[in-house]
């Protein structure tokens, strides 16, 4: 409603200016028309007749009429009607502006400033809160990191212990296996030697029997075998 009223006021002002101002907008009359108009107007006052018009005093009077059209009123002297309207318009405008116009805009500006100030305060507050939360998160993150590092370190140490333990056990097992293997080898070698010895003795005896084709007594056989084996072993 208020907006419509203001719009209507402005429209009325426009119509007033362009409508009523139509005549006023026309540029002023020409010098010739002014002179003739004034001459016609004052013709009767001067009592001019075709007979006396050529007299010097009448020529001067007519000349003054023409001069008055050329000589404009001093432009620096204000016209009273314009002072009343223009000065009055400014005074009334000032009163209306101080009463309504200015406070309305100033109020909006102040409200905006207050809102912006409040919003900025809130933003500051939110920012400091966010900062606090961030620091807390950072602290927690740092804690988590150090905890993780501790866990990793512990795991590493445990792994190290485990590794050395396993290594020791493996080494022990290897040593044991080596011992076992050596023992097994010895046993196998001894067994093989025993087997070899009996095999060889049989072969030797058989061979000897065939060579000498004679039976030797047990003692001579043994000695012979022993010598043979030693001989074989040294080879």
């Amino acid at each position, binding site marked *: 409603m*208020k*907006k419509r009223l*203001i719009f209507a*006021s*402005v429209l009325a*002002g426009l119509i*007033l*200016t*362009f409508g*009523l*101002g139509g*005549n*006023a*907008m*026309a*540029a*002023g*009359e*020409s*010098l010739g028309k002014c002179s003739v108009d004034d001459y016609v107007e004052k013709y009767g006052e001067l009592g001019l007749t075709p007979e006396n018009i050529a007299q010097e005093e009448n020529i001067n009077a007519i000349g003054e009429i023409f001069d008055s*059209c*050329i000589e*404009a*009123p001093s*432009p*620096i*002297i*204000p*016209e*009273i*009607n*314009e*002072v*009343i*309207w*223009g*000065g009055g*318009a*400014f005074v*009334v*405008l*000032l009163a*209306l*502006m*101080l009463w*309504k*116009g*200015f*406070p*309305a*805009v*100033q*109020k*909006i*500006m102040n*409200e*905006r400033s207050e*809102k*912006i100030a409040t919003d900025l305060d809130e933003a500051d507050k939110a920012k400091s809160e966010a900062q606090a939360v961030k620091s807390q998160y950072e602290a927690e993150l740092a804690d988590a990191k150090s905890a993780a590092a501790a866990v990793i370190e512990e795991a590493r140490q445990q792994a190290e212990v485990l590794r050395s333990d396993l290594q020791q056990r493996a080494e022990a097992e290897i040593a044991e296996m080596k011992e076992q293997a050596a023992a097994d080898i010895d046993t196998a070698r001894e067994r093989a030697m025993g087997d070899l010895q009996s095999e060889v003795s049989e072969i030797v005896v058989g061979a000897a029997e065939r060579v000498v084709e004679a039976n030797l007594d047990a003692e001579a056989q043994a000695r012979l075998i022993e010598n043979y084996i030693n001989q074989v072993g040294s080879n």
Partner: protein
Amino acid sequence: MKILALEFPPVSHLFEWPDFAFEGTPLAMNKTVLVYLFAFALTLGLFLLAGSKKGLVPRGISHVAEGGINFVEDSIVAQTMGPDGKKYVPFLTTMFFFIFFSNIFEVIPFIQFPANARMAVPIAMALMVWVIYNFLGVKNQGFFGYIKNSLFPPGVPKALYIIVTPIEFFSVFIIRPLSLAIRLWANMVAGHLLLVTFAVLSATLWDSTYVGAVAPAAMLILMTGFEILVSFLQAFIFTILTAVYMGGAIHPEH
């Protein structure tokens, strides 16, 4: 009047408009009066419209009103009167817009007349400013203090007061309102004459030669732009000088 064979209207006919209402009375209305009334309606309408628009971000017409207030506050009052001048911002803002709108009709089509090319409002406002700054001077410094500070500026060798005091008297109490009014009036008269000259020249040369009208028409366009600047500048100068005089009356030490 024949100037260089051109039919140039008499100068008075460019500034004096026939009455169209209440002829012959002190309330006679003419084109000048209409421009003043229109400047009145525009200033008030601008602020009432801007005052009815709420929103975090100013838009459209609010920019003009709020920008105007900020401009007067920051570029005029803050520079000349300091924080004490804040309460005079409404007065100075109204003055600025009223003068500006009265001036800018110089380039508005179909009107094309700066109302301040008539002496009425410049002298009325200058006298109002004279009353206000003298009142503020007496109010803030006391009658004798104001007279003393105005006529005997501190820091001047005493012997020079023989010369300085009469100059200051004329300057502060007589010349100031006149110079304020004449500066605005004369600038608008000169601007209007310039535009009319180039317009008449363009029209005449167009009628006779066509091509000859190009240069004055270009100047007419250029001068129209220049007069927009002058309209703003003269409103600004009138307002800032008012603020300077008021500030000087409130703070004599500056």
